[in-house]
Structure formats: C-alpha cells, structure tokens
C-alpha cells in the first residue's frame, strides 16, 4: 500500500511538472505581449523594454521556465502582472468559492442522479424508467452555459426565487450548483440504474425477500448500500470533469471563484495567474483520481492496486 502510494505520488508530481511545462510553453508562444498590457498605452518603447527586463521576460524560454520552477518549489507562484499581488494570495482568496461550488454540485449530482437511478431500476422497463433515462441523456447533453442561463431566467429573473447571480448565501449557491450538477446527475442516474439492476438480481436480495423482509427495507437496507459503493468511488474522478465547467459557470453566475479569476487573467495575458490556476486545477484532478483509486479496492476486493 505504501509502495503504491509512493509510486502514485511520484507519478502525480511528474504529471504536474509536465502540465507546468506545457502550459508555460503555450503561454510563451502567445502572440500577445503581456508587457504591453502592463505598460499600458502611453508607455514609451523604453518603458516597455525596462518593464520587460524587470520581469525577466527578455530571457530565453528555458531560463524563464527554470526560474518559475525554482520559485514554485518554494511555494511561490509569482505575482500577477496586472494586480501585482501574489498569485497564491489571489487563488487562496477565491478558492473557497470554487470549492463550495464543487461541493454543491456533487451534492446535487448525487441527490438527483442516485434518486433517478434508483427509481428507474426499481421500475425497470416501465415508462417511468424510459422517461428517467431520456432525462438523464438530456442532462448529459446539455451545454452548461445554456442550462445556467435557462435556470437564471426562469427561477431568478421571472420567478425571483433565487438571486440573479452573485455570492454570499445558501440561496446564491443553489442555481450554480444545479447547473454544474445536472450533467453529472445524468451520468450518475444511468450508472446507478445499472448498478441497482445488477444488485437486485443478486441471490442475497432474493434470500432477504424470502425471509419476509419488506420491500422497502430490502431496497434501502440491502440493495442501496451495495449499489452505491461503486458510484461513490467515481466522485473523485468527477472532480476533473467539474473543473472543466467552472470557467463557464462562474462567468454566467458571477461566482467569485478561480474560474472567474483565470478568465479575467486570460483576457489580460496575466500569465502568472493562468499558470497558477492551471496547476491548482490539475492538482485537484490528480488528487481526485488518486482518491478514487484508493477507495476502489475497499469497494470491490477484486480490484488490486497495481
């Protein structure tokens, strides 16, 4: 176990390193010049060159990357070109909002998806089953920004049940979580259905029924726990998929998380922020995968950590 963990940690570090160099290279190749953004429009060419030298942006690629890496190992993500604040500070101040959104999304996904899957499995073959499965497909196929705008329009603008974007209370969290969660809900619904269907056919379920236990009790007490386990293992991987959506959803809802931060940074070629947020997101994905892999053997003893 320790050996496995050790190996995975080394792998993760290498992956993050790889991502850092690819991102750095892409940003280096951008035709846009960050120094011009910083220097503004009234700057003379001399000022521009001076700023370029100050930031070390006149150095060759490997020197720049080496310097970045060295700082990274000290936990220094650099300073934003535009705001001059430390990137780590900026990310830390906005990370809670994004994490909150992800937690909200996962809660929504699981609540909605698992319920749908459970009901569909129990009523297998019926019209309810079919409708739920179509609904799950729709959830998976819906573009997040459309879902977000739709929910905003219906529930916030028209019905005023929720605030129109923004951050602060529980009510602000509902619509964005739903938006991010609907796609996952569709996915979990289908997985749950299959899992439940498998479990319901198992012998021990028939035995429980034969012993005279009530349907509901068997369902909730025996079938559900066993069906859920493999799905819970997926939550870790979910993080990677959720990370993909935050830029868009935070933009639609004005949610002050790292997605919004990196989107603003991209407009202004604020490279340190883009690097920082990419690495933090990649870290989250890697950790999520690791979590999923670690949980897996506890759920299915047939799986061995390789």
């Amino acid at each position: 176990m320790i050996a496995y963990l050790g190996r995975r940690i080394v792998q993760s570090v290498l992956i993050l390193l790889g991502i850092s160099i690819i991102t750095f290279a892409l940003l280096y190749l951008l035709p846009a010049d960050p120094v011009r953004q910083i220097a503004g429009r009234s700057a003379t060419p001399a000022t521009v060159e001076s700023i370029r030298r100050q930031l070390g942006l006149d150095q060759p690629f490997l020197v720049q990357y080496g310097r970045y890496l060295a700082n990274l190992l000290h936990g220094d993500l650099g300073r934003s070109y535009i705001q001059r604040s430390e990137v780590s500070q900026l990310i830390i101040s906005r990370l809670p909002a994004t994490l909150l959104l992800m937690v909200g999304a996962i809660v929504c996904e699981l609540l909605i998806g698992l319920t749908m899957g459970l009901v569909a499995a129990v009523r297998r073959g019926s019209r309810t089953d079919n409708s739920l499965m179509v609904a799950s497909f729709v959830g998976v196929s819906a573009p997040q920004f459309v879902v977000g705008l739709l929910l905003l329009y219906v529930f916030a603008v028209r019905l005023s049940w929720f605030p129109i974007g923004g951050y602060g209370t529980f009510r602000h969290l509902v619509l964005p979580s739903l938006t991010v969660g609907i796609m996952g809900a569709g996915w979990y619904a289908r997985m749950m259905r299959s899992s439940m269907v498998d479990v319901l056919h198992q012998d021990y379920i028939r035995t429980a029924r034969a012993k005279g236990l009530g349907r509901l009790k068997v369902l909730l007490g025996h079938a559900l726990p066993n069906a859920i386990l493999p799905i819970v293992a997926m939550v870790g991987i979910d993080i990677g998929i959720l990370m993909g959506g935050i830029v868009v959803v935070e933009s639609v809802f004005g949610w002050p998380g790292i997605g919004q931060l990196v989107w603003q940074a991209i407009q202004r070629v604020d490279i340190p922020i883009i690097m920082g947020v990419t690495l933090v997101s990649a870290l989250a994905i890697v950790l999520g995968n690791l979590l999923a892999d670690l949980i897996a053997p506890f759920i299915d003893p047939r799986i061995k950590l390789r």
Partner: protein
Amino acid sequence: MTNPTVPDLASPALSAGSQPPAKPRPGVLRRLVKRRLAVLGLVIIAITVLGAIFAPWLTAFGPDEQLFDGLTLSGEPLPPNVTYWLGSDLLGRDLLTRILYGARTSLFIGVVANGTALVIGTLIGVTAGYLRGWIGGALMRFTDLMMAFPALLLAICLAAVFEPSLWIVALVIALVNWVQTARVMFTQTSSLVEREFIAAERTIGASGARILFKHILPHLVPTIIVWGTLGISTTVLLEATLSYLGIGVQPPTPSWGNIIFENQTYFQAAPWLVFFPGIAILALALAFNLVGDALRDILDPTQRGRE
C-alpha cells in the same frame, strides 16, 4: 469536456476486466432502428443535416444579412413574428436563418474535429497497446498527463496561440478530445494482443503489420464506431462553449455557440436569442449520445464496464 459516459477507463485500477468485443455482426442498422431512443437520435441528426444542406432554400434571408427592419429604431432585436419566425438578433439578422446555417458549422466541426481526435487517439492508443515496452509506456504516461489537464483551460490557451479560423477551432478541439479515445484503444489493443490467436499467428511467423491489420484493427472497429459517434456529442458541446466564450468560431460565420455569445447581454429582454440556439445544441448532442449509446449496446455490450 470529457464524455462522462465511460468514466472507469480513466483509472488504471478500475479498468481491469474489460474484454475486447467480437467482430461486428451484420444487421447492426436493423437492430439500431428497433430501439426507440436511437431512432429519435437518428431523426434529429437527419433533420439537422437536411436543414444544413437545404438552408439557402428554406429561408428567405442570408445568414449575414443585417436587415434594416430587423431592429427597432433604438437598436433592439425583434421577437418571433411573421417575417422573422424565430425573431431577429442584435444585428437585425434573421435568427432562423442563422440557426440553420449554424448547423453547417456544428456538423463540420463535429465531423472534422472528432475525426481528427479519433485518428490521433487511435494511433496513439493502438501503437502503445501493440508495441508495449517503453514506447507504449511513454505514450500512455503522456496520455495520463493530458488527462489531468483541465480541458477547457487547455482549449482556451491553444485557441489564444493560433489565429482563429474554422479549421483552427476544429484542431484545438481535436487536440483536447483525443485523450479518452487513446485510453480506450490502448486497453482494447492490449487485451487483444494477449489473446492466444495472436500468439499463434506469431509462432507461425506472421509479420507485425499483418497481425495488426488483419486481426487487431477489425476488432477495434466497433469501438471506433461507438467512440466516433459519442465523440461528436462532446465536440459539439466544446465548440459551443468555446464560441460562447468568444474564442471559437469567428463572426460573422454563425455557430450556435457564438449566436448565444453575441446576444447574451439581451437574454433577459430577448430570451429566445439564447434558447433557440441552446435547444439546437442540446438536441444535436443528445442525438449523437442516443445513437452512440445504442450502438455501444449492440456492438459491444461488455464495454459498459462497471455500469
């Protein structure tokens, strides 16, 4: 965005036990049309394709025509009415026309981007699975690396590096989406390579290329078909998202995503400008998902993994 319908293959630990499928049996199409949902998907795809092809004949306006009567005197768009069946957009262009021509964009990118992703993914996955060894290992490590990359951020950075055009958008999407395919192809190829009849061919002295083309690739065809179909759905969604962020298809070429992007400031006053293209995106992605899922059931039931 990764297609979430096959999550387990992302993790090496959980992909144990997936068997490669048998060769595709005849009568796939017949079996396909027996499934209601698949038929729904096919119908939607057919409507989209026909709409795209016959767009010039179906509408009275051009997609780029900014009509004087298309806006109120203070520059506001018109709601659906007799002249503009789905209303007009913020430049006074007919929305229905733009949506029909937008279908061309979505289909073009769907096919090109997904096709490219498929080719790249298959090349990498099959090579890794067949050659194994350190080349295989390196390729798969690289795939793992790209999987950990937040997909949308990668797409945004890539889009910023190149000068935008329809082909570049397709390329960017392909460069982000090849990863899942590679993984699947790798797993399939590895299992196939381990099967006895391959070993038998080797002892007979068959060349590597022969084994590859005659024995392995045909077994991969179902997977390629399934992934090809499902992948279009992911591609359509990614293109819509990139265009929505303003970095996808360039104006004035209509794309369902950039129609929403251009008109979203008015979505409270003119919600149809967001919802009609939004429904189009949803419908097309849904259609390919339905068809792809049905194909997977028919061609390759074991591939559902832990589902």
